[in-house]
């Protein structure tokens, strides 16, 4: 229906006079349009922001006195709870907790690096292969299949893992028929990094490659022809023609990924182990820890401190990465 529109060469209509009735009317329309979204952002994104001060307090839920300006227990408690400085942060590095803290931070960062690197390679590789296949019908079919897992929730994946991995699961019944002893997958840590990696690739590779495929499709074929005439084989063509076109998008997506390095796919890490406590050392990420602490009886200042570090580090990382990119290759920076 819509084809790519060439950049406007038609002269832009003369600028309306500032503060003309039309200008004001237009802007009032725009304001009413953005208003619902702005309200949503205020309620769901900005309203929780002041709450980060819980990390510096011993939060106690108290009922506000009748003369308090707002009759809300959370707001009153937030203001009235005593400041404790960095005590909540110190709790995390107490000798008794330090190993645990290192464990979940390490899990989060390592899983993210693993997914970033392996995910990137697989995604680009898939896009290139799909593009190179000579039969378009099959290429489209493969790509549609690869995209399918994106629709499946992690809870359903948890069922699949269960059917495969429980002690009477498909893996163990198959092993038994071959005469091998069963694997206690829900009880041993060694399997889980692989399960998470495979799950992550399974769910996101097809979806991620759409973008790269679109870029590759848009590359001028004359560049490949020139390279081929110069004697470049397919691999050389990839590194000298395809990859340079993909780099800006790769950089952009990696900046965003670096900003999320302290985050994690909560649903995956929470549902796949199906609550098995024996493997928690390899399935607990920062998000999981914060959630579990929030649900436990311990003071919420502790998880709040972790969540604050998570937010601030993510924010700083994205600023720093973007700053470095802007200094070296300004056209690739996010902002």
């Amino acid at each position, binding site marked *: 229906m819509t084809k790519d529109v060439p950049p406007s060469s038609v002269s832009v209509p003369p600028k309306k006079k500032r503060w003309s009735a039309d200008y004001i009317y237009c802007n009032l329309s725009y304001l009413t*349009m953005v208003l619902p979204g702005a309200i*949503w952002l205020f309620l769901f994104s900005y309203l929780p922001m002041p709450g980060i001060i819980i990390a510096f307090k011993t939060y106690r839920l108290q009922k506000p006195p009748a003369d308090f300006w707002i009759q809300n227990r959370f707001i009153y408690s937030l203001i009235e709870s005593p400041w404790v400085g960095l005590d909540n942060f110190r709790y995390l590095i107490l000798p008794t907790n330090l190993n645990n803290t290192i464990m979940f931070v390490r899990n989060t960062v390592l899983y993210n690096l693993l997914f970033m690197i392996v995910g990137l390679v697989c995604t680009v590789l898939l896009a290139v292969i799909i593009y*190179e296949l000579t039969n378009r019908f099959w290429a489209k079919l493969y790509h549609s299949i690869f995209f399918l897992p994106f*629709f499946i929730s992690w*809870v359903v994946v948890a069922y699949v893992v269960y059917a495969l991995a429980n002690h009477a699961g498909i893996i163990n019944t198959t092993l038994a028929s071959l005469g091998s002893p069963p694997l206690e997958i829900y009880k041993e840590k060694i399997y889980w990094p692989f399960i998470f990696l495979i799950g992550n690739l399974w769910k996101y590779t097809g979806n991620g490659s759409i973008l790269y495929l679109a870029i590759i499709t848009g590359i001028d074929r004359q560049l490949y022809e020139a390279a081929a005439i110069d004697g470049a084989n397919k691999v050389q063509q990839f590194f000298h023609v395809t990859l340079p076109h993909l780099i800006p998008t790769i950089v952009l997506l990696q900046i965003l990924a670096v900003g999320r390095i302290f985050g994690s796919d909560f649903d995956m890490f929470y*549902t796949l182990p199906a609550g098995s406590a024996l493997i928690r050392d390899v399935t607990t990420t920062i998000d999981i820890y914060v959630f579990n602490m929030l649900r436990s009886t311990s003071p919420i200042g502790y998880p709040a401190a972790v969540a604050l570090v998570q937010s601030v580090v993510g924010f700083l990382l994205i600023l720093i990465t973007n700053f470095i990119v802007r200094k070296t290759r300004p056209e690739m920076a996010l902002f």
Partner: protein
Amino acid sequence: MDTPMVNTKNGRDMLAISRGTNTILNIIMVILCLLVLAPFYVIIISSITSENSLTVNGYRLWPEEFSFNAYTYLFREGSIIITAYRNTIISTVAGTVLSVILILLYAYPLTRSNFRFKGFFTFFAFFTMLFGGGLVSYYMVMRQILQIQNTIWALFLPSAFSPFWVFVLRTYIKTHVPEELIEAARMDGASEWFTLIKIVMPLSVPGLATVALFSAIGIWNNFFNVLLLIDQVELYNLQYTIYSTLNNIRFLLENAFQMQGQVNLAELPSQTFRMAMAVVTIGPIILAYPFFQRYFVRGMTIGAIKG
């Protein structure tokens, strides 16, 4: 999907990979596709295994005895699943419609050069992509200030808007709706609202379809917000319903030998029934795929490239 057409010269393109390479790649792709589809097979085959066969032989790639009892039972007596379905459908429809409206309304003014507060509202949305208040205060605000816990709102309102999709749609509108067209409509005396609804919206259908699809998947598969905000079984959506049952069976079965006498395994709803529940959870969202497919590759790729 939009995949490139190869210009063939005398049957074969000079840039095309050799027949041998093509064959090998095809074989690899077929194997990979089968592996990608394997989880669907696993869960479907488990759900049509007879309960007896599952108890005696465990899960098998090819069960000894098939049975569709789980499904007949599901549709006859599956009251948990019916409630969960109702909640999921209501929240998905409401959330998808709402998110498309909110995102379009927010994205369009950001494309207009005469919007006085464009910079402010761009930043207002962008900042939330970089920084957040964290889970703890989000949880407290949802429960203590907005108080949407244990209401149907909790199933879709927290996912009803997304700054990321605002920027995708903004780029889409910028590149697909000619500025002259909007200006011409304005010259003819059309109001901004009229222009948005009658001109911008019809031209942005692929972009909007993409937003709708991703929003629908997100809300259909919503698990986290239910975990955080819903305590009542009547308000569970599909994902949370099947999650809580999986957790129960895994725990009970693996610890059954330690709790002799405390748990009667025969009283547990059947395992095939659970698997069938997981299968019917997938169904509808997969059906949405072909419907949106024609639009959404275009919508997604063009909108997401930096502009």
